[in-house]
């Protein structure tokens, strides 16, 4: 029974630190309110807070007692862990609460601890009372959690559920209907076609706001697929992708806006020019960085992206780019009757379809194979006759071209752009969405864009904690699933190189399929 003591202590301390941290950043109030809305207890702050703490305590207890076979030891282990965590949290509550009661304005140093938040943390009572309550609840919840986990044998349940899931999947795929559909020759195409039709009809029915989310996500999907060619296919880690996005956007903007150059060209003329210029920039960046190895390439491209942003903002080029003010009243395409929201959604869809086509075709050609070979072993690839320089430049150019396309669409959809729209975070977001979604795989990139961009827009309540969660998500994803949510088969192989992989028997090789 005592075996778990050290473990419980450690678990308690870790949870304690996390809880204290969450309290300091004001997250527990938000979490409490979220829980409140989930359980429909309304705005009763105190109740919600207690619920929040109680639930965390339960979780802690359950984790601590994972291995326990006796309900008593499960309860004790849970209680110990809970008590340790609670002690830490209580101490902090006591400290901050006392300071607060003594009249210290905490929010000058800990920005989230405004009086209303403090009152909620203290349950509206005195500091020592709140501290005590915290401690006791954690210890009790911990014990309960331990017992719960013993009762439910959560580990066992997980295995049972997953085996049920697997069996269900197997049996459904054996169903005659499914078999019939699978064997029907063009079935895949028909399903995709139907999906496309749905996608096209959808925007007409959605609200302006929903369309806006789709447009934003769509632009990121476009950027993600473009960067996917550079990073996922050719294996070149570009952290400055935003530079090409900016070049495309500014080109379209400066050519269609009345200021500062008094050109008011049509969008449809500016668009291809933006794409070509961005592509040329891609080649220009590619030439010097070709010989660098991974990390350095990343930093150099990052530097390049920042240089472009600083230049765009600087006084030096203000007469050309309007500096920090940005460009306004950018011209857009004429959609012949459709609302511009819907029109842009269609444009973005079409662009995405285009890039999917290009990516797939390239992947299945000798260019795609050359890229994979370069990623695997550049030395040997060269010895096989692959012109590494040309292929890297090609990847850069095509990737940059699509960034330019996205930029032009972004600029005209937004109607105004400024240098701060092209900060480093954009590059990082795009890289993150590819990596989290699954590098090299098209469904993965799309999934990544939805998770990283679409979801936060919907979960507006967590607005302030978005970036924090983003950072944490990156680390967590790398720790538990570095190949991404929906990785390409090859990516999964590359990441788990030391593990033996079983292939699915020999099937007839289909050559030349799109």
């Amino acid at each position: 029974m005592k075996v778990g003591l050290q473990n419980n202590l450690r678990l308690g301390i870790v949870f304690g630190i996390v809880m204290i941290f969450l309290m300091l950043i004001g997250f527990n109030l938000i979490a409490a309110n979220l829980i409140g809305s989930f359980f429909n207890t309304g705005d009763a702050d105190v109740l919600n807070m207690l619920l929040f703490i109680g639930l965390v305590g339960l979780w802690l207890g359950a984790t601590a007692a994972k291995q326990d076979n006796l309900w008593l030891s499960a309860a004790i282990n849970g209680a110990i862990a809970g008590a340790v965590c609670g002690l830490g949290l209580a101490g902090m509550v006591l400290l901050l609460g006392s300071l607060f009661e003594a009249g210290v304005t905490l929010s000058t140093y800990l920005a989230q601890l405004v009086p209303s938040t403090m009152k909620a943390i203290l349950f509206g009572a005195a500091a020592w009372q709140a501290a005590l309550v915290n401690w006791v609840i954690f210890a009790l919840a911990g014990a309960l959690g331990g017992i719960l986990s013993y009762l439910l044998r959560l580990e066992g349940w997980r295995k049972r559920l997953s085996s049920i899931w697997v069996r269900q999947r197997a049996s459904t795929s054996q169903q005659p209907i499914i078999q019939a559909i699978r064997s029907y020759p063009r079935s895949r195409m028909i399903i995709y076609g139907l999906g496309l039709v749905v996608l096209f009809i959808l925007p007409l029915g959605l609200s302006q706001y929903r369309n806006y989310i789709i447009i934003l996500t769509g632009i990121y999907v476009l950027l993600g697929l473009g960067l996917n060619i550079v990073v996922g296919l050719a294996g070149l880690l570009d952290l400055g992708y935003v530079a090409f996005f900016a070049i495309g956007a500014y080109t379209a903007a400066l050519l269609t806006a009345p200021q500062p150059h008094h050109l008011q060209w049509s969008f449809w003329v500016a668009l291809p020019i933006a794409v070509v210029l961005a592509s040329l920039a891609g080649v220009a960046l590619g030439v010097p960085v070709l010989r660098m190895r991974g990390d350095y390439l990343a930093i150099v491209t990052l530097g390049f992206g920042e240089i472009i942003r600083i230049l765009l903002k600087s006084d030096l080029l203000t007469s050309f780019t309007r500096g920090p003010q940005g460009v306004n009243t950018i011209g857009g395409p004429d959609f012949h009757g459709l609302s511009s929201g819907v029109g842009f959604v269609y444009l973005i869809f079409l662009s995405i379809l285009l890039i999917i086509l290009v990516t797939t075709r390239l992947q299945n050609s000798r260019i795609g194979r050359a890229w994979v070979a370069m990623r695997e072993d550049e030395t040997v690839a060269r010895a096989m006759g692959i012109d590494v320089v040309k292929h890297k430049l090609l990847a850069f150019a095509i990737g940059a071209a699509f960034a330019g396309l996205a930029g032009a669409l972004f600029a005209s959809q937004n109607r105004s752009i400024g240098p701060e729209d092209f900060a480093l975070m954009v590059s990082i977001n795009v890289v993150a969405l590819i990596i989290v979604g699954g590098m090299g795989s098209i469904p993965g990139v799309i999934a990544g864009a939805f998770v990283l961009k679409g979801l936060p827009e919907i979960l507006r309540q967590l607005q302030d904690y978005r970036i924090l969660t983003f950072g944490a998500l990156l680390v967590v994803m790398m720790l538990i699933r570095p190949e991404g949510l929906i990785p390409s088969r090859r990516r999964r192989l590359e990441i788990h190189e030391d593990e033996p992989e079983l292939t699915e028997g020999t099937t007839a090789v289909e050559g030349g399929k799109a």
Partner: protein
Amino acid sequence: MKPILETRRLTKFFGGLTAVNQVDLIIPENSIASVIGPNGAGKTTFFNCITGFYQPDDGEMIFEDRSLVGLTPNAIATMGITRTYQNIRLFTNMTAMENILVGQHPRLKASWIEAILHNPREKREEETAVVEALRLLRFVSLGGLGDQLARNLPYGAQRRLEIARALASRPRLLLLDEPTAGMNARETSEMTIFIRRLRDELGITILLIEHDMRVVMGISEQVTVLDYGVKIAEGTPGQIQRDERVIEAYLGHGAASGLNISADTAAA
């Protein structure tokens, strides 16, 4: 017979070390030639110079009347020289079929635009490539294993796959770096027969680095011996076996005297 490859005074330094020192070598077309020597003699460096990985510091390399000096490795590969590696360097996360398809790269002509458009010419080229890859797989006795990941193949199969990959671009000169390393007697003799087939059926010139004397003496028409980067002997297998300097290089100074070389290593 016309030489397919000729090096004159080929030299390569690494800092203070002269890895390859004024080596002259002539390889007749359609022959099987070997380069041997103790470890560290500069054999792999020599290969690396020919394939363009190192730029030689002095000397000439001429392949079918064209100079190789200063060319990039991919240019040299396109000219018709390919190689295998001492410690197999397949594309481990690609299938056998994909490895061979990559090997065909110099022979495929479709541009990236055609790849995107997927026009009939590109389609046909890809289909032909696949057929050719299957043929090569059968040629190296790996038929049916096309979808296997390269890293899952057994050792001998991997070696054969590497050769198939090197053959995929229809080279004129094939450099094999210790093709029988790690093989037992049976596998070695199979490989020996196979190498001879390559020359006989495909008309490829073979240049071999080998340590296994059975192989060297068995199939080579010409053997060149390097020691500390210097060519110390060259000739037929029989001549090399009796050469004093060669014996000393392998067995140490003074070993030449008092040794009876038996002629029981396999005759051609």
